[in-house]
């Protein structure tokens, strides 16, 4: 489902459908997280991606498209070349991964419960992630401002 969705998403010519396929693929990933019982991440995934980004994307699609029309198909040569390159990369990475024997960490697992996560996220002690949290807030702020400034409506030239 993930892969399928992804492939459809990058190939379908109807941009709107592409967005929907992307949505499916993302939800699939969320499912995967659930299955790995990382509920928190799954939740974040669904909230941010499904609830945020995809919606954003769809809005922008509405803004920039008269719905329903096809996108221009990619140039053949370009897509072929890209396909080859991607395939090559895929093969390369996979072979390397298969060659590689992953060493398993010894220490006992930490329960990735929301509680734990919350504690760690806001603590500055060992395994504390306060700083990144702060920094991200700065980042969000900045990008918000930037986005506003840019996207703010300027008089369309006659």
């Amino acid at each position, binding site marked *: 489902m993930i892969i399928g969705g992804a492939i459809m998403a990058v190939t379908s010519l109807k941009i709107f459908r592409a967005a929907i396929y992307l949505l499916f693929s993302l939800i699939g990933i969320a499912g995967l997280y659930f299955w790995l019982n990382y509920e928190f991440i799954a939740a974040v995934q669904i909230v941010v991606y499904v609830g945020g980004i995809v919606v954003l994307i769809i809005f922008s699609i509405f803004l920039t498209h008269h719905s329903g029309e096809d996108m221009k198909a990619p140039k053949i040569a370009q897509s072929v070349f890209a396909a080859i390159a991607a395939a090559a990369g895929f093969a390369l990475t996979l072979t390397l991964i298969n060659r*590689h024997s992953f060493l398993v960490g010894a220490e006992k697992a930490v329960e990735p419960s929301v509680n734990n996560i919350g504690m760690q996220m806001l603590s500055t002690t060992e395994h504390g992630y306060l700083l990144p949290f702060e*920094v991200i807030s700065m*980042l969000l702020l900045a990008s918000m401002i930037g986005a506003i*400034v840019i996207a703010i409506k300027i008089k369309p030239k006659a």
Partner: protein
Amino acid sequence: MGKEFFILMKPELGLMLIIFLLLILKIWDGIKEKTTLLSIVNIVLLLNFVAGFFFNKEGTLFSGMYQTNDILVLEKSILSFGTLLISLIAWDWLKKHEHMLEFYILLLTTLLGMNFMISAGNFMMLYLGLELATIPLAALCNFDLEKLKSSEAALKMILSSAFASCILLFGISMLYGTTGTLIFSELPAHLDGGMLQMLAFIFVFIGFAFKLSVVPFHFWTADVYEGSPVAVTSYLSVISKGAIVFVFISTLINLFSTLGATWYHLLVISIVMTITAGNLFAMRQDNIKRFLAFSSITQVGYILLGLTNGTDAGSASAIYFLVVYIFSNLAAFGVVSMVSEQTGKENISDFNGFYKNNKVAGWVMALALFSLAGIPPTAGFFGKMFLVTAGAAKGNYLLLAFASLNMVVSLYYYLRVVKAIFINANENPIEKVQSSFPVKIALGICMLGVIATGFYSGIYDYIVSVIK
């Protein structure tokens, strides 16, 4: 926590302070007069820069996520100094701009990001800093709001840097997978040079090489430089490059030192490709900003050459060169911005006979270009020489020969511009360009730097002493 914390994180805190101050100003919207605002901002920046030289301490915070020491502080102060210069040079442009405050907020955010990136203690912070330094920058590229090129530049910036950071992230994830840690202090112990690790390492390297616009990851550079407002362009070419170089110096080299030989060869290949391509592309440019973009690519090649040395000497020469490079490049951009501000001309051919009406500006430009080309008596000569000297230390004389002969090629296109300014005839040359007081100051500082930094060995000695 406590006093310790404030001292160690001083640069970042200072920046955050300024940012919030600006936010408040923005929201409260009290001061209408632009110039006063600008002067306030600049003064604050100056303070921030000056503060960089007092009570510095070594230490780490947040369980090693944040580390600092004299070198890092020095690097940060260099960056903030460059930013100050840029904001001075951009004075005239900003006065007209209605989003001046946002400009500063974003600018400083990126600077903050760079600071975090420099003093990052693990990959998470590194990546965060990188993004923090990139995304607002993309927004900044778009700040000539009604200019088409500007937003196109922004697009190219954001898309390609997103792609690059994807590569970087993939690399990091693989590193994580193969070593099980993200903390720099622990990482080298886990590096065993396995193939997957190599792949990861190369991905990471390329993620940063992209930001340095190392060939063949440089294509975005020219377009973005051309499209963005001059201030942003100079910021891109000097500060963000510098930040990445600093990251190389203070983090990556030590981090992957266990992969010595590969690391060296990787650098060598990048150097050769970068210098060659940079020169070849710069040769036929007509837009002066594109031209400077490619020239900066070549410069990066030389910086990497210095880094191949791998010892303190190399790092010192690289830092020194960056200082010189800030002076010279900003001087060049300063003149370019003046011209493009008042005449909208950005082509080298427009500069024909420039000297006729602009004696001082002509000399400033010329000196800056000489400094970039590494011609004495400008400081650029010393910078380049030290880089090359450092690069030759490993005894790789072919590389040395390659680099020094390429200097000649690069001289060719720098001289093209000089020729345009001084020699080429032009029936209606550019009129006398006016420049406001801050710009004059900034250029003055740059010229002082370009000339004095070379003769006065103190700066270099200071850098060395700090690194030791």
